[in-house]
């Protein structure tokens, strides 16, 4: 099964688990499975239309899914999916 790496700030929503195994065939299916299992994650990962929030980046291995097929990117059995929050800010 593919593995999703949960970033530290979101582990409180996964009972402190740092990884989640998924049988999803695409990134969208994998994230759906994750947010169905751990409901508290949904508001941080998905927008009102159930799409991945713009400030969340998803990598499969070392590749940004935005350079592949976005959330339709295929997920192989041994894939490692990383959820990466945007870290940014600055003065007013």
């Amino acid at each position, binding site marked *: 099964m593919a593995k999703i*790496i949960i*970033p*530290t*700030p*979101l*582990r*409180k929503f996964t009972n402190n688990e*740092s990884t989640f195994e998924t049988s999803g065939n695409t990134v969208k299916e994998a994230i759906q499975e994750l947010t169905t299992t751990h409901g508290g994650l949904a508001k*941080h990962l998905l927008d009102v239309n159930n799409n991945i929030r713009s*400030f969340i*980046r998803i*990598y499969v291995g*070392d590749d*940004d899914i935005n350079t592949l097929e976005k959330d339709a990117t295929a997920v192989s059995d041994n894939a490692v999916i*990383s959820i*990466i*929050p*945007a*870290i*940014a*800010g*600055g*003065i*007013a």
Partner: protein
Amino acid sequence: MNSTITIEEKALDVMYKHGRAAFPDECCGFLYGNEKEGRFIELAIPVTNSKEGDQRRRFEISPLDYMKAERYALENDTTLLGVYHTHPQHPAIASVHDLEKAMPYFSYVIISVMDGKEADVKSWKLYDDKREFYEEQVNTPVIK
């Protein structure tokens, strides 16, 4: 909210030196430590401000640097507890830009750098149930 963050002197020193070196641009980095007895920052590691454009007003950490930071925590048996950045010539108050992309759980430590020298340090954290910051009480060595 009543929340305290303690920052070890050597970690604070790394942030201050980074802030001075980057001035008048903003700089940023990751904070690691433990939560055995409250939130305790043992280590600050600078990262590149990858923001394209005006780095005097904005910072950004690249996704690859973020992945490395998570990996570092796993490999070194420590916890990624937050992010620091500087506000050159501005107070250490979290801005709307800081709030926009803030994540729960993380401490967002902000250092005010005035005329090239650190002037203040504050830490901000999101409420659990709403997208607003509250200020954490920072325990640090006194700024000289």
